């Protein structure tokens, strides 16, 4: 449950701030590679080690207070 909750929080954050984008058609679930790519973009923009994996630093960064607008750091979603 905890693992699932973390995944949902992660996807929610990446989606809310423009690192992930819901596909216009097809299933709602994200492919793992999309999530990994989005997480890498977030880690790079946050000057964290870019692993594509959730770690403590990434989690801590995602908890920091911030602006509600999206980030333009995932080139694919920005396009």
């Amino acid at each position: 449950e905890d693992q699932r909750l973390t995944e949902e929080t992660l996807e929610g954050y990446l989606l809310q701030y423009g690192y992930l984008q819901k596909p216009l058609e097809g299933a709602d679930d994200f492919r793992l590679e999309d999530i990994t790519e989005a997480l890498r973009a977030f880690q790079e923009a946050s000057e964290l080690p870019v692993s594509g994996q959730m770690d403590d630093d990434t989690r801590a960064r995602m908890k920091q207070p911030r602006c509600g607008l999206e980030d333009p750091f995932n080139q694919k979603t920005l396009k």
Partner: protein
Amino acid sequence: YLLLGRWRKKHLTYRILNLPSTLSPSRAQAALRQAFKYWSSVAPLTFREVKAGWADIRLSFHGRQSPYCSNTFDGPGKVLAHADIPELGSVHFDKDEFWTEGTYQGVNLRIIAAHEVGHALGLGHSRYTQALMAPVYAGYQPYFRLHPDDVAGIQALYGKKSPETEDEEEEISTMSPVTTKPSPMPNPCNSELDAMMLGPRGKTYAFKGDYVWTVTDSGPGPLFRVSALWEGLPGNLDAAVYSPRTGWTHFFKGNKVWRYVGFKMSPGFPMKLNRVEPNLDAALYWPVNKKVFLFKGSGYWQWDELASTDFSRYPKPIKALFTGVPDQPSAAMSWQDGQVYFSKGKDYWRLNQQLRVAKGYPRNITHWMHCRPQTADTNSFTGDTTPPTTDTILDTTPSTVDSFLD
């Protein structure tokens, strides 16, 4: 930086629709107003606050539910604020945040407001984690200034600020800085002043070294180079005095005196001082007899600007007229409250209408500057701190000299 849009005009209005509960109204308003000044000081933008009716940019606070905003907030932490891009103009803050000013506690309203105003002007999030436009709040910074990426972004949208684009109606603090390597900047909250004066339009100025700042009830304003406001004026002044009677502002340094009307130097100045001693300590205008007083050491000169003054019986002892005032004051001024103020070192004295030092003085000048680091807001005027923002502006060289006071 990322550009998201742009206003087709450069003179914008803004309106503060409501305020947070964790800051006094004056404190919160000062923080929000300052947020605009960061941008108008680096780009040819002007912002005029309106108290009613329509405004281009509208700032408001709402919580989880808002009839006016589809983006709800989420309580303390997480999302702090959001804004629409041009030309929509809405800027919203999460009212459930602990909004503060001048302290590391809570979330600094001024910095977040400056970030959101950046969005309202068309900037997206910056890749530089230390930039104002970075998406994540980097915490309170006492000497906050815009990051070069922020400046590059706003100037990509609206161009650079140049003297020609200045508008007389503009607030002084929006004057244009050009970033050079700053000489050491004084800390307004614990510097011995060179001079102070109640200037035109009731603004209180404090001078130290190459810099000048305004003193308001919410603390020191941003630092500017003296020459950025009064072109041609050097730093490290001896004295400064504004006379409402003549509209003249006089600055004294060494054996020279500069005269300005507003911020324009009068023709023929600077001139040489020759009937009072050089290297004055302080000067003030006393509205009771409409004369200017010049101070040096233990003596003073009383000068009638509009008549030829007989200085043969001067200097007279300071103590003969100003009871309880120390010799060699570093600055002096009459203020809006009808009292006279002298400062020396880190102390200041207040004198009543009878020019007698009031009980309980001297006090520490940080009190007068409304500086009190590290505390949450208290009521305005008992002192809190808005550490200065730091803008640095080009310097200019002094011009030729004639003689004065004849």
